[in-house]
């Protein structure tokens, strides 16, 4: 079974600075997706970024980028120019690419606080 580990339960960063959230995963699959979701206090789960495992190029979405190391099974999220609105729980998630039974496996989350 796939497992996802987020080793940093809590992190903080000053506004306008850069922060990196770590995620590692364990799988024997070759084709899969990796995701980062953000959960602000509103509780809504919001997709931040998506990475397909077969793509070597790291995904980016505005101030959010990932460092995807397939051999090391590592998928970290970098937030540049942190804003107060980035304060949230961040979840790393893994999903197999093929078949009906491709449920998503989540890490336990990292609580990020952006300080003014």
């Amino acid at each position, binding site marked *: 079974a796939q497992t996802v580990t987020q080793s940093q339960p809590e992190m903080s960063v000053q506004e306008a600075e850069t922060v990196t959230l770590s995620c590692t995963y364990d799988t024997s699959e070759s084709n899969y997706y990796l995701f980062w979701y953000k959960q602000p206090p509103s*509780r809504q789960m919001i997709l931040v970024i998506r990475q397909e495992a077969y793509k070597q190029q790291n995904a980016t979405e505005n101030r959010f980028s990932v460092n995807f190391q397939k051999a090391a099974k590592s998928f970290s999220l970098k937030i540049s120019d942190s804003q107060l609105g980035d304060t949230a729980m961040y979840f790393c998630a893994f*999903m197999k690419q093929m078949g009906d039974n491709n449920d998503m496996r*989540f890490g336990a989350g990292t609580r990020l606080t952006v300080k003014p």
Partner: protein
Amino acid sequence: DAGITQSPRHKVTETGTPVTLRCHQTENHRYMYWYRQDPGHGLRLIHYSYGVKDTDKGEVSDGYSVSRSKTEDFLLTLESATSSQTSVYFCAIREGRTDTQYFGPGTRLTVL
């Protein structure tokens, strides 16, 4: 928001009572999911559906059942609620083109 609604948004019930949570989507997605979120565990899959009347178990399915009689509705039932089922429940759909899951707003369930 992928057109997903959940009802109710909050519910308090007593141990031993049946509870049904509803997930409704408006965009005709084939795949739908029910997750629960507990501190220290992230989200864990309860059941999922890959079509009308087609459902299967997830990681934490004990004590839960589901039904999908229409594409747009996916129901989660706790036949006899227990305090261990106090949690936040999320419904999700899988968007077919990108295989990305999008989530509903969640339901907070408290079992006393």
